[in-house]
């Protein structure tokens, strides 16, 4: 549905995005992750034909973004970073205007209007001026605008910003319900959002794609060992050596807090039972024992923070995991 081939965007000497290539299948939800200034918004602006790419090709629903912008725009519902609302219009007037811009009229427009207002629970504010609405409502009006003409492709730049937790869950459910019939690209800073809503994640940093996969596969790919964190009451000098002696333990690293250790075990082996038995039989006093799984946060931080992540994934990951252990 969306096919991006080697697009580059330069502003003078500054390269905002550099040879970005990815695709989104019909009905797929793709998350765009990346720190601020990574190039997420630029990529979205190219896909929505707001600006042309310096190099490369982007196609949406078979139409070229440079040569057939009007056809592309008809296929897309776009929610920019700031909800594009006119404060002097009421919600109904605004959505009517949006519908007319997209060539909807009469019965079709009225039906779409009622349906979208219902979907986003805007019924109670539909006759109020947008200028008088709260940030959360404006965000929902912005989302309503993108969904109004039921486009096959949705491009949402941080769709849940400014919403309260209940609304965030509702909007995520809404986006999930769109999967299957719509192709969705959403950018987000909130990593659990990507895990909760998306089938695939593209991580972009400094204008380049650094990883692209499902959330589960991404963490699995970067994980080269199982990790167990333990905290002991007493720490005799030989405990580190004894821990290392357990078959399957690759490395023992001291944690930041007193008495805590991070144990790296062979991939696919659960050594918690052996570790617990050793600690208990040695009377070291087991205060805590838990496995550390790599969350998308770790993957994200690692990929965007460490340039040399591909060369030394284990070390970077240990540091990321160690940081998390402190918290």
């Amino acid at each position, binding site marked *: 549905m969306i096919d991006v081939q080697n697009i580059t965007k330069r*502003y003078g000497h500054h390269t905002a995005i550099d040879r970005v290539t990815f695709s989104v299948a019909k009905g797929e939800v793709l998350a765009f992750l990346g720190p601020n200034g990574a190039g997420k918004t630029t990529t979205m*602006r190219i896909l*929505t*034909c*707001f*600006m*042309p790419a310096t190099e490369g090709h982007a196609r949406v629903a078979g139409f070229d973004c440079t040569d057939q912008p*009007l056809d592309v*725009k*008809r296929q*897309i519902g*776009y929610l*920019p*970073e*700031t909800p*594009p*609302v*006119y*404060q*002097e*219009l009421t919600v109904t*007037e605004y959505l009517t*205007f*949006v519908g*007319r*811009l*997209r*060539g909807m*009229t009469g019965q079709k427009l009225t039906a779409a209007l009622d349906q979208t207002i219902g979907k986003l629970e805007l019924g109670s504010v539909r006759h109020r*001026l947008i200028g008088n609405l709260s940030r959360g409502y404006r965000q929902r009006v912005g989302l309503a*605008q993108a969904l109004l003409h039921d486009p096959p492709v949705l491009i949402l730049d941080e769709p849940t910003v400014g919403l309260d937790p209940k609304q965030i869950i509702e909007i995520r459910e809404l986006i999930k319900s769109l999967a299957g019939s719509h192709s969705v690209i959403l950018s987000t800073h909130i990593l659990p959002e990507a895990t909760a809503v998306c089938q695939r994640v593209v991580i972009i940093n400094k204008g380049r794609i650094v990883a692209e996969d499902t959330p589960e596969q991404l963490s699995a790919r970067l994980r080269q060992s199982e990790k167990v964190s333990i905290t002991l009451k007493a720490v005799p000098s030989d405990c580190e050596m004894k821990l290392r002696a357990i078959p399957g333990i690759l490395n023992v690293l001291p944690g930041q807090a007193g008495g805590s250790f991070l144990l790296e075990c062979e991939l696919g082996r659960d050594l918690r039972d052996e570790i617990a038995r050793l600690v208990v039989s040695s009377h070291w006093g087991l205060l805590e024992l838990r496995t550390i799984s790599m969350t998308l946060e770790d993957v994200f931080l690692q990929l965007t923070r460490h340039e040399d992540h591909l060369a030394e994934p284990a070390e970077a990951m240990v540091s990321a995991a160690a940081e998390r252990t402190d918290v």
Partner: protein
Amino acid sequence: MSPVQAVIAKELRGYFVSPIVYVVGAVFLLIFGLLSYLYVGFAGAQAIQLMQMQGGVAQINLNDLVFRNLFASVRIVLLIILPILTMRLFAEERKLRTFEFLLTSPIRIHDIIIGKFVSVLLIYLGLLVLTILVPTVLMLFSDFDWNPIWTGYLGMALLGALFLSVGVFASALTENQIVAAFVSFGTLLSMWLIAGLGSLLGDTTAGRIISYVSYMEHYDRLVRGLIDTSDLMYFGSGLVLMLFLTHRIVESTRWK
């Protein structure tokens, strides 16, 4: 309803929801009324003088004494108020980040520009129609030729349309409405003043070109009751040129 009509409807709605149309309209009509009252007053005083000198009923020409002066003075009013009507058109869209939304909607850039221009033109023409009350009332008490008045109105409509197109262009340049208003005001005032430069240079090539670029002589001929196709061409082409430049400016923001 086509996308252009949707833009026109939305802009008109925006104008009437904000106080801008009411304030600008009230000021325009008030000054138009005051000017009319003054010129009618002067004409009356002149008539009394003539009667005393000649005896009997003096024939005074309202077309010359009232309407030509009135239409000439209206220029300065339009110069000040029309930039205020146009300043929000694009600047506000940029400021409120709705510009990106418009440019990613399936509507062509020239349709956006035409929609915005037509909406503000309709408001201006609406104000002009209200001022027809002045000659209508005068008609009840005196006798004058309506034809130069219609050409005067044609002149005001064309001059206003040109001013508005300059305003639309200035609004597309910036996201600051004050800057937009000031740029169009400065441009229009310069176009006024270069008429003086043109007459200083006299009947030379440069003088003729400069006089042609200024709207003064084109407007004056219409106010005097002369319809010349070259004047109509001047206003038409000036307007199209400004809207074309607006298109280039809007288009160029996509490449920045």
